[in-house]
């Protein structure tokens, strides 16, 4: 299990391949890999967005993400996982977050990946400040709900 805070750009697909290559002893064991990649949009709340800065609480970010991953492990038979989150200055079309989960079966991989991502959105201490073109940026007030209310 790995949790990584990234200062600067990263390629999620290379990271997944690279991490999977390190998983000794898992060859033939995982039948499912579920992946979520979050990418920066060039619009938000009706406005074009030129870029943004992601602030975080160093130490607490890692601690909360590790707790969330441990919770997922307790609920589903996860073989391994990789969580990466970028901080600092970001441009549209660049990846912000990666959650990848390896499990024997797809249901567990899907569910654990979704759980980690939704918990990250509501508990991991990161904050986005958008650049709209004016001098002062705009802090994003809150995340949208991931699950549709039923």
């Amino acid at each position: 299990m790995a949790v990584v805070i990234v200062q600067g750009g990263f390629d999620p697909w290379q990271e997944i391949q690279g991490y999977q290559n390190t998983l000794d002893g898992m060859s033939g064991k995982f039948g499912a890999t579920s992946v979520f990649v979050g990418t920066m949009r060039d619009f938000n709340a009706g406005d074009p967005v030129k870029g943004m800065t992601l602030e975080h609480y160093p130490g607490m970010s890692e601690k909360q993400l590790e707790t969330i991953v441990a919770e997922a492990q307790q609920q589903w038979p996860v073989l391994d996982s990789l969580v990466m989150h970028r901080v600092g200055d970001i441009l549209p079309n660049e990846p912000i977050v990666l959650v990848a989960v390896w499990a024997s079966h797809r249901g567990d991989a899907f569910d654990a990946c979704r759980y980690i991502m939704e918990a990250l959105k509501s508990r991991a201490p990161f904050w986005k400040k958008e650049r709209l073109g004016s001098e002062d940026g705009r802090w994003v007030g809150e995340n949208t709900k991931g699950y549709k209310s039923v």
Partner: protein
Amino acid sequence: MSIKVRYFASLKESLGCSEDDLVFAGLVSVRDVWRYANPQQPLPDNILAAVNMEYVSLDCSIDDGDEVAFFPPVTGG
């Protein structure tokens, strides 16, 4: 007892302060820390608090050496 207080994101900007070191004589809660550190500012309604990097309620009591953090709703991912 001595504690460190930290602020993040929009709260840090609006207060014009990222951290502070405070000394208290008696038992205090997270809410007391805010009142003492920001006597002119009411606690924002949607504020979140952490002690030693774990989420806590505003009524949580503080120990010597704790790091108390206040911040707005998180918006990562």
